[in-house]
């Protein structure tokens, strides 16, 4: 009788303990979501207050003058990111194809792939200093194109790893069918592997772009900044992220407002890319 009572008691204690611990886990999950909502709402409301049409079409006005905009930063950001994408995507996809298609049984290629995987989490500011030493210092001034190179270097490992992962999902029997028909290796890669995995590779590309759109640190001393609109990538070029950094640190209330507005555009732009990538991979 007594032992049975004890047993019921321990079971109850264990159950209560289980509930308590699992509730804590639930609370942490809510904690995570809470921050997301808080940040998004703050960015949305503060950004929306300062969002206006002139932000996109006007050049910056001196502090105190109404109606200034950040046209130069939007244009610069677009140019820098596009050039980076053009440089980064082919190299990234190419390396990814090599890892998956040529390097299956090679220890050396596996080693290369592992290093690439490490480079995905590599501190972006170090890449900025690297590009500064290689491109900016010899030329003598900051350049938009050097910002693109830094971003491309940042993007390549991301795209390479995603491409590799996706190509590994393509069943080998498909490739063997190609070889059986007499196709050569590059034909198998082009017409079978890539064609089967193109949606996944597209996801990798979008994720790569999403990764570099929000980057600031590598641009600080490569593309630097510019207060005027320029279309020439050999000149210092403003970007949205560096401008946010400058304006948020600045003393003027107007600047803070414009920084929030740019933050709104940037955040939702990045999240759009991200959601687009998820959407592409889900739609089978």
């Amino acid at each position, binding site marked *: 009788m007594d032992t049975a009572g004890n047993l019921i008691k321990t079971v109850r204690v264990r159950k209560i303990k289980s509930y308590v611990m*699992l509730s804590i886990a639930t609370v*942490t999950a809510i904690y995570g979501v809470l921050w*997301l909502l808080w940040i998004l709402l703050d960015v949305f409301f503060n950004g929306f207050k300062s969002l206006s049409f002139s932000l996109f079409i006007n050049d910056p006005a001196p502090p105190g003058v109404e109606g200034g905009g950040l046209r130069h930063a939007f244009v610069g950001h677009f140019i820098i990111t596009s050039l980076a994408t053009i440089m980064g995507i082919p190299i990234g996809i190419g390396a990814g194809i090599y890892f998956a298609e040529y390097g299956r049984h090679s220890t050396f290629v596996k080693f290369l792939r592992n290093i690439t995987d490490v480079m995905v989490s590599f501190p972006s500011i170090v890449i*900025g200093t690297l590009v500064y030493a290689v491109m900016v210092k010899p030329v003598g001034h900051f350049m938009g194109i050097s910002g693109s190179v830094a971003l491309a270097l940042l993007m390549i490992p991301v795209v*390479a790893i995603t491409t590799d992962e996706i190509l590994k999902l393509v069943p080998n029997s498909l490739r063997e069918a190609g070889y059986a028909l007499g196709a050569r*290796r590059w034909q198998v890669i082009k017409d079978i592997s890539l064609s089967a995995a193109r949606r996944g590779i597209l996801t990798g590309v979008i994720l790569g772009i999403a990764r570099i759109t929000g980057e600031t640190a590598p641009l600080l001393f490569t593309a630097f900044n510019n207060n005027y609109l320029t279309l020439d990538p050999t000149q210092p070029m403003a970007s949205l992220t560096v401008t*946010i950094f400058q304006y948020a640190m600045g003393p003027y209330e107007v600047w803070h407002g414009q920084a929030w507005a740019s933050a709104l555009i*940037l*955040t939702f732009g990045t999240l759009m890319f991200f959601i687009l990538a*998820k959407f592409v991979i889900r739609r089978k």
Partner: protein
Amino acid sequence: MNGKNSIPELIVSQTLGFFAVFVGLLFPLATLTILIYESIPALEKSGILHFLTGRVWDPVSEVFGALPAIVGTLLVTLISSMIALPVSVGIAVFISELCPERFKPFFSTAVELLGAIPSIIYGMWGLFVIAPLMADHVEPFLQNTFGKLPLIGVLFEGAPTGIDALTSGFVLSIMIIPFMSAIVKDAFEMTPPLLKEAGYGLGATKWEVVRNVVIPFALPGIIGGVILSVGRALGETMAVAFLTGNVHAIPKSLLEPLTTITVAIANEFTEADSDIYLSSLFLLALILFLMSFGLLMTAKFLILERIGKRWTPRGI
């Protein structure tokens, strides 16, 4: 008709091979070489030991000691990891074990989105929203509660400004939570259902299964995830750039401004007016490179590689 040596085949394989070698070997190697080359003047002037242990960073008189920046980096990373670890494990437990199937995509996506927000947004939000909150409410509260206690009271001394180690570490923790919890969750989900069912079969409660089956099984993944996130936190710049104050001094409490390697580089690189100043910043970048590369490699090779091979059902 030799397929291996046809011209398109050669072009394709050589080009792709070059890209692979470029990203996997040349790129990191070139980074290392160039950083070493650029930091030679600083190494010659200060000496590596002097640079690492020097407490004074005074560009005007050209005295460069990196200890405050290194300590600051480690401190901010430590604070953020200490906050992020329990939360990430909790999130992983919730998503993989508790969450009803219907809400799973919602929570997973929400946490992933948290990771997709650009770091500068975290920094700016931290500066405009969190720092005032910390300065006006949280830090005075902490001071009143813990400030009088022996030992830990020291941690909360100083004027609560919101621009300090605590705020930096806190904002950084929000940033690494998604990353850490994603890896921990993946490790959890690798636990074979068979093992869990065996636990339930013995009459274990859900928590006991998590505590005694899932967490031990996923431990290598958790450790790997933590090291990986720490590696990421070390190199994070913009989230903390607004919040540290960039003061080259070893903070005596959590409420004092400090600097990290990344923040020092970001703030001072374009202002460096002498070659030796610039070279010292390159040396900082080199130290950061070695620290984070070492950590990331450790995570990669020692732990993440093993997790897949640890338990394979036999004889079933």
